[in-house]
C-alpha cells in the first residue's frame, strides 16, 4: 500500500517517511469544505491583484517570462499556472512568484538566501491570514504550513513527471474536480484524486506529476511540513471549522 489512510503515527518512523516506499498520506483531520470555498472565493475576488502567473512580466526573472512566452511551458509546468505566495520573507504589496522564479531585482530579500534561511524566514503575509487559513495555522502550526502557496491549475494543465527535493509537501484542495489527478510512479501508473475537505501529505522524492483533466480549475493550498512533525499531524483527529 502506497496510499496511507487511517495510519497509526507509531508506524511512521523517520526511516519510513524518508524512504520512497509511500506516495500519499491522507490524514484523519478534516476541514470544513464551505470555509475552504469561502477562502478560495476571496482569493479569486478581493486578492486577485496579488496573484502571479507566467504572464507576470514585472515580477518574474526575465528569462523565465521569455521562456514561457516562447515555449508555453516552464520546467515541469506544461501550460500556465497562477498562484498566491502566502508565505514570504517580508510583507509585500505586490504578487510574489515562487522563490526560484522571482526576479531578485524586484525582490532583493531573496537574493543569495539559502533554502534553509528562506524556509525559516518566510512567514504568512498578514493579508492571507483570515478565515480557514487562520484556523489551520492555529491547529497545525507553521511546522506543517511552511512556505505556503495557493496554486491554481487551469483545465488541461499538466505537470510532467518529476521528483522534487525531499521536503515533504502538504496539499489541501480548495477547489477541484473529479478529473484532476495526481499520478505517481515512473510511468504515472498510480492515479490518485484529492478531495476538498481533506489534508494530504505527498512524498516528493517519488516520481510524480499532475493532470487537470476536468473542465474547471484545480486550486490547492501547498506547504512544506517538517518530517519529524508528520506523526503528530497524522495523529490529529476531528475537523477544522
Amino acid at each position, binding site marked *: 500500500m502506497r496510499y496511507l489512510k487511517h495510519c497509526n503515527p507509531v508506524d511512521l518512523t523517520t526511516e519510513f517517511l524518508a524512504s520512497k516506499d509511500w506516495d500519499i498520506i491522507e490524514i484523519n483531520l478534516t476541514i470544513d469544505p464551505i470555509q475552504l470555498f469561502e477562502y478560495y472565493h476571496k482569493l479569486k475576488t478581493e486578492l486577485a491583484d496579488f496573484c502571479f502567473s507566467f504572464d507576470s512580466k514585472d515580477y518574474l526573472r526575465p528569462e523565465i517570462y521569455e521562456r514561457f512566452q516562447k515555449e508555453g511551458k516552464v*520546467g*515541469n509546468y506544461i501550460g500556465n499556472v497562477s498562484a498566491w505566495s502566502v508565505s514570504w520573507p517580508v510583507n509585500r504589496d505586490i504578487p510574489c512568484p515562487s522563490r*526560484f522564479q522571482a526576479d531578485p531585482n524586484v525582490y532583493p530579500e531573496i537574493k*543569495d*538566501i539559502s533554502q*534553509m534561511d528562506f524556509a525559516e524566514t518566510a512567514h504568512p503575509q498578514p493579508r492571507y491570514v483570515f478565515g480557514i487559513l487562520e484556523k489551520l495555522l492555529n491547529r497545525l502550526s507553521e511546522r506543517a504550513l511552511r512556505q505556503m502557496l495557493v496554486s491554481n491549475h487551469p483545465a488541461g494543465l499538466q505537470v510532467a513527471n*518529476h521528483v*522534487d527535493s*525531499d521536503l515533504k509537501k502538504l496539499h489541501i484542495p480548495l477547489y477541484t474536480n473529479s478529473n484532476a489527478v495526481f499520478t505517481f510512479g515512473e510511468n504515472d501508473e498510480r492515479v490518485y484524486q484529492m478531495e476538498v475537505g481533506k489534508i494530504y501529505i505527498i512524498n516528493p*522524492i517519488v516520481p510524480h506529476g499532475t493532470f487537470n483533466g476536468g473542465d474547471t480549475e484545480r486550486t490547492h493550498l501547498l506547504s512544506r511540513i517538517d518530517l519529524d512533525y508528520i506523526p503528530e499531524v497524522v495523529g490529529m483527529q476531528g475537523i477544522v471549522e
Partner: protein
Amino acid sequence: MDWKIKELNLEFSLQELKNYFDYLERSWIHLRWDADRNDVNDSSKHQIEGVYGWGIQSNLKDLTQPCPPYHVHKEGTQDYRDTALMFGFAESIKEAFPYSRQHSIAVHPPGTVINLHTDTAKWIKIHVPIQGNDNSYFTFEDEKFILEPGKAYLVNTTLMHGTNNLGTTNRAHFFFKIPADMVDDVLTVKKI
C-alpha cells in the same frame, strides 16, 4: 588551442552557488550519483572512491534517476535534458551560456585522482569551484593549476589533463561544457 586554463571575466555570486550546493547536499540526496555504485563504464583506474555528484542535465531516459556528472553511465546518450535540479544558480548559468550543456556538480574527497586523459575535441569544460584546498588541482602533464572558488575557468579538456585532491578536505566544482568553437564568445560574458 594550445592554452591549458583561462580565467573567465565572469562576475557571479559565490554565495548563491554555495547555497545551491548546500541545498543539493541537504535535500536532493535521492538524485545524488555515487561513484561507488556499480553502474558505470570505467576501466581507467582512476581513484574515485567516495566521489559523488549530480547531473543537473541528464543523458538518461529517466530524469528522476541519479545521473553521473561525467559521461560514464552505461545507459548514457548524447541527448542531455534538464532535470529538476535546473533552477537557481544552475539556471542562471544556462541562461548566460545558452549553448552550454551537461551542467553538473562533482565532489572529490581527499585522495581522489583522475588520471591524465583527453576528452572530446568538440566540447570544452568550464569549471566553477565551490570549495577546494591548496593541494587540490588540475594537472596538465608538466604543469598544475589550483582553481579558486569565486572564479570561473575554461579548462582545455582536449589536452591531456587530470585532477588530484591531495588535501584533507573535499573539492567541489560546478562545471559544464560549451562547444569548442564558442570559446571566444564565452570570454565576452561578464555577469550572471
